[in-house]
């Protein structure tokens, strides 16, 4: 159950971090009066990058119209100017994949060093924070997950150990009657595996109640938290993984306890 909760928490945290870092964009402002060839050369450079998802060209006129649309109150200022103050630009949207900030910064720097690019606008701090958050979420997930896997392993191992101990006489009789090690071990291994599967399934069920049904009752009490982090249930792959992982923990937990406890 605890493993499921942490898997889900880590999952949600990572997802939120990814969502926040979506629409990661940079705007490359160009020098004025560039020829079409020069513009298309830069456009090609941007589009050919593996980091880039989309490239939009915003001409000086488009930029002006955008400004006018967004800030109609500042219309007067623009009218007093002789010429359009806005430079043409390329708005680049990066892929949502798991890109490292270093790659993005290197790419931005490379484009910025081009003569035709006068300036670049992007939020370096935001990118770094989002990636740190994402990395932290994953690391916490792995760390706690690892500890919990170990804890489950030892718990199951101890349950089986107690079980083996309570059935010591029966095992002794089986051994002396000519049972193979496998014959003696199979019931315990099955028990461990079944315990694991049931544990995993129960954890999924409780997690489902916690994530899907609880917020319905709590509703508005969760308030901003509910809006900010929309709790998600584990994906099908993760659910199957959880059950299989629990089964494996059960199996290997029993195996370890048996090999330590059963002599020939």
């Amino acid at each position, binding site marked *: 159950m605890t493993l499921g909760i942490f898997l889900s928490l880590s999952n949600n945290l990572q997802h939120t971090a990814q969502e926040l870092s979506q629409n990661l964009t940079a705007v490359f402002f160009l020098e004025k009066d560039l020829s079409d060839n020069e513009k298309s050369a830069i456009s090609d450079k941007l589009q050919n990058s593996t980091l880039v998802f989309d490239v939009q060209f915003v001409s000086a006129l488009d930029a002006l119209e955008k400004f006018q649309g967004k800030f109609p109150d500042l219309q007067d200022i623009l009218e007093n100017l002789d010429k359009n103050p806005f430079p043409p630009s390329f708005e680049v949207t990066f892929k949502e994949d798991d890109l490292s900030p270093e790659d993005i910064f290197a790419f931005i720097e490379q484009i910025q060093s081009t003569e035709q690019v006068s300036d670049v606008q992007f939020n370096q701090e935001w990118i770094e924070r989002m990636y740190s958050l994402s990395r932290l979420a994953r690391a916490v997930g792995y760390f706690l997950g690892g500890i919990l896997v170990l804890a489950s392993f030892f718990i199951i191992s101890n349950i089986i150990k107690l079980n083996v101990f309570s059935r010591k*006489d*029966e095992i*002794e*009789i*089986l*051994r*002396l*009657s*000519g*049972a*193979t*090690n496998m*014959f003696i071990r199979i019931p315990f291994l099955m028990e461990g595996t079944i315990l694991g599967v049931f544990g995993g399934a129960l954890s999924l069920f409780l997690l489902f109640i916690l994530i899907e049904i609880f917020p319905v009752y709590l509703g508005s009490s969760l308030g901003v938290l509910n809006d900010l982090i929309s709790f998600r249930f584990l994906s099908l792959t993760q659910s199957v993984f959880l059950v299989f992982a629990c089964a494996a923990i059960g199996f290997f937990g029993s195996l370890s306890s048996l090999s330590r406890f059963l002599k*020939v």
Partner: protein
Amino acid sequence: MIELYGISKQYQKPNWALDDITLHIEKGDFWFVTGPSGAGKTTLLQIIFREIIPTQGQIVIDGRNILKIPDHKIYQLRRTMGIVFQNFRLLFHKKVFDNVAVVLQILGIPQKEQRKKVLNALRMVNLHHKMWDFPSQLSYGEQQRVAIARAIVNNPKIILADEPTGNLDTELAIEIMSLFRAVNEQGSTVIICTHDRELIRNFGKKILFLYKGKLLRKEEL
């Protein structure tokens, strides 16, 4: 059938639980091993079914040096033996039938045949009418008879019994001993450890006397 060559066992220095035992037991023999407590009777039996490994010596059963059998194959040796303990070692949460059938389940014998064999074994010890009882519902003597039925159900070549009548009165002890005699007459080699002199006087034809781990003498009447 069972050949022991210079078998010694030391659990803790400087005492020897068994000291240089050389012995040949023929197929179909019925041997008593006797001696006071601490003479090494149980150790001798444990070495024969390879529960423990001797410190020195070799042991050959049916032409095979059992000390050279790898651990994971030791079950093959034990399947040729039936072992009876003083404290019965029954499964008290299982019925009499299942207590006896467990040996056949290990061998993967079909259920129909299991039923037949268990019934035969229980008939031999005269407990077939109690096969659906739990051991706790039986008397001491009956419980020991269940343990004997379990030991003989698969017609083992060798029956080893460690103080099988230790907890029983003389009358019951004679009854149990008659059962071993009957099993022996069917061809199994029987080795019984006991310090019950009365029993040995009545049933013993071949007797090994152990004292402080040494084979004091061997009598064949």
